[in-house]
């Protein structure tokens, strides 16, 4: 039994225009000390799926199905009290934009200690001490003095560190990081990723790292799930995804990755077209309209099935394995998504 296990999660929004199937049957799990990378374009459902774990997508127009098991306990229908306890204490989350994720009117110290005080029966002084300790842990110099500063007195990278400190202040067992580096400068991105990695090693928590950038998870993830239009299309270990990818969408993502360490033999490849509208996704395989390798069978929905002999490596594609091996190679030894030469 994994620490956190999401089973067949469906999150649908009933809008005026119709039902948006933001997440349509996603399953994934993560264990203590592991890092799961969830990769996909904007609108693939990766954020919605993870916000749903914390009940953050609940609303009168949302319908949520499936199971979210925390230590085997299903929290998908958790009541308000149980949910408030899970949030921040068992599972903590940090978000994409550190500039807007902190309350602009409250001092950092107050926002940090509030996170403790809602969960633990400690004095304000103890909460403040703990807040200073955490700021120090995430590498903010002169931590105690900075508790009295407002968010706008911190840079973007520093604010993301504050967010991380706030998330970790109650020793959560799971940290969900939703595009934690997307809004930051490239130089700061690496710092923040390394910080998350170091803290995970120190504290032994499970981490779910959500990103649209395969390059971000390449360094830190143990497992990777690739999401596309509300579904997981491929799941496997880091090596499996990078060196033996099975789904054409994953090929496309890998092909569009800038690789400064390799000679530039050609232009970066791109995936043609746009992700489908989740109001009316294509019948069958959702990636079908953008896939140059589409054939008749793709009009039926492929299951997320394990590859023969590799039970942990799953993908959602009808192409036979031997055909994939030839189709995914473009120019030399690189993997990419291109129409086969006629």
């Amino acid at each position, binding site marked *: 039994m994994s620490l956190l296990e999401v089973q067949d999660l469906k999150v649908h929004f009933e809008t005026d225009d119709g039902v948006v199937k933001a997440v349509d049957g996603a399953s994934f799990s993560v264990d203590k000390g592991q890092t799961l990378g969830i990769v996909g374009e904007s609108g693939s459902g990766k954020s919605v799926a993870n916000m749903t774990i*914390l009940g*953050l997508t609940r609303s009168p127009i949302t319908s949520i199905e499936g199971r979210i098991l925390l230590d085997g306990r299903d929290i998908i229908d958790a009541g*308000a009290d149980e949910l*408030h*306890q*899970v*949030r*921040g*204490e068992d599972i*903590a*989350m940090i*978000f994409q*934009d550190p500039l*807007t*994720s*902190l*309350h*602009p*009117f*409250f001092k950092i110290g107050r926002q940090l200690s*509030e*996170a403790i005080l*809602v*969960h633990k029966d400690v004095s304000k002084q103890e909460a403040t001490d703990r807040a200073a300790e955490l700021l120090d842990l995430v590498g903010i110099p002169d931590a105690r003095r900075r508790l009295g500063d*407002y968010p*706008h007195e911190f840079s973007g990278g520093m604010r993301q560190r504050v*967010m991380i400190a*706030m*998330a970790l202040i109650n020793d959560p067992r799971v940290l969900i990081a939703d595009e934690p580096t997307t809004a930051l400068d490239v130089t700061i991105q690496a710092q923040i990723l390394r910080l998350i990695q170091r803290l995970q090693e120190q504290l032994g928590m499970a981490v779910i790292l959500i990103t649209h950038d395969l390059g971000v998870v390449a360094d830190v993830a143990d497992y990777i799930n690739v999401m596309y239009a509300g579904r997981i299309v491929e799941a496997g270990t880091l090596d499996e995804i990078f060196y033996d990818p099975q789904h054409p969408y994953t090929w496309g993502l890998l092909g569009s990755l800038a690789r400064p360490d390799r000679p530039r033999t050609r232009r970066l490849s791109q995936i043609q077209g746009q992700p489908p509208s989740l109001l009316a996704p294509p019948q069958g395989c959702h990636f079908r309209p953008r896939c140059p390798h589409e054939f008749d069978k793709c009009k039926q929905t492929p299951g997320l099935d394990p590859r023969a002999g590799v039970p942990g490596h799953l993908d959602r594609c009808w192409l036979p394995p031997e055909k994939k091996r030839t189709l995914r190679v473009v120019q030399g030894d690189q993997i990419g998504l291109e129409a086969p030469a006629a």
Partner: protein
Amino acid sequence: MLRYIVRRVLWGIALLFLVSAVIFLIFYVFPNADPAKLRAGRQANPALIEQIREQLGLSDPIWEQFLRYMTQVFTPFDWFGAAEHGGTGPLNFGRSFQSNTPVKEIILERLPATALLVAGAVVFWLLMGLPTGIISAVKRRTLLDRVTMVTSLAFISAPVFWLGLVALYLFASDVGVIHIFPGIGSYLDAETFWAKCWSLFLPWLVLAAATAAIYARYLRSSMIDVMSEDYIRTARAKGVAERNVIMRHGVRSAITPIVTLLGLDIGLLLAGNAILTESVFNIPGIGNEIVIAIRRSDLPVIQGIVLFGAFFIVTFNLIVDIAYAYLDPRVRYQ
């Protein structure tokens, strides 16, 4: 922070000077009616008019009149012949053409009624408007929200004088269908402070209704915006109970722009904008006085009230600016 306040105060003073100058232009330079003739009244003869002209210093050059006027309004000194022509200041706006009472006395006599009217109305509209706005935002798109928003639109659209008459018709103790609250002119008979408050009950409600409705709608939309902010999601994600997310994190942000509105509204009402309510309920306030003064072409009184009003508006703007810096830490560092 201190620098910010000092800068704001200096701005306020400069603004007040500018407003005074404009008012001087409007009342002394532009009118084609001769102030001396107005002052002389019906039985005017050339000699009397000439005497008044001399007394008010109206034949002096414009710049000298202007400096004398500014001296009388802002300083206690006898510069530019202030003592000789109308007496020294500060706050000397001259005497009423009609009753020969100093304008300052007239204003100070009228101010308490207006101040009490406005103070009570502010309390009422905040008590009605703010909770309504918050609840409507939180219960957005429910029946409750729709009903309150339609009701508020009705109150915003209803003219104050009509609302006042309806309120009197329904609730006044003399002419009302149900005899509950004191009616027209009851303020004039009220002796004690509490009696005055009681007599102002209907006027408070009437004056507060439209503003409460505006505040409710404003706070609702500002609250809806705030509740979709990222930092609200952060508060939820760290386990803060929804009630506190709304009250501590949400309202704290949404209320800030309301402070701006509040300052301006109080300033405007004290400056005479409660005129309709005062007329309907016959409350002897600033607004009522300016109507009388205008009807009688009593220039010094009109001018005094306008300048006083400008003073209130500038002052409350200043208070708003300072309050804003206190409420929003980002402002302090700009």
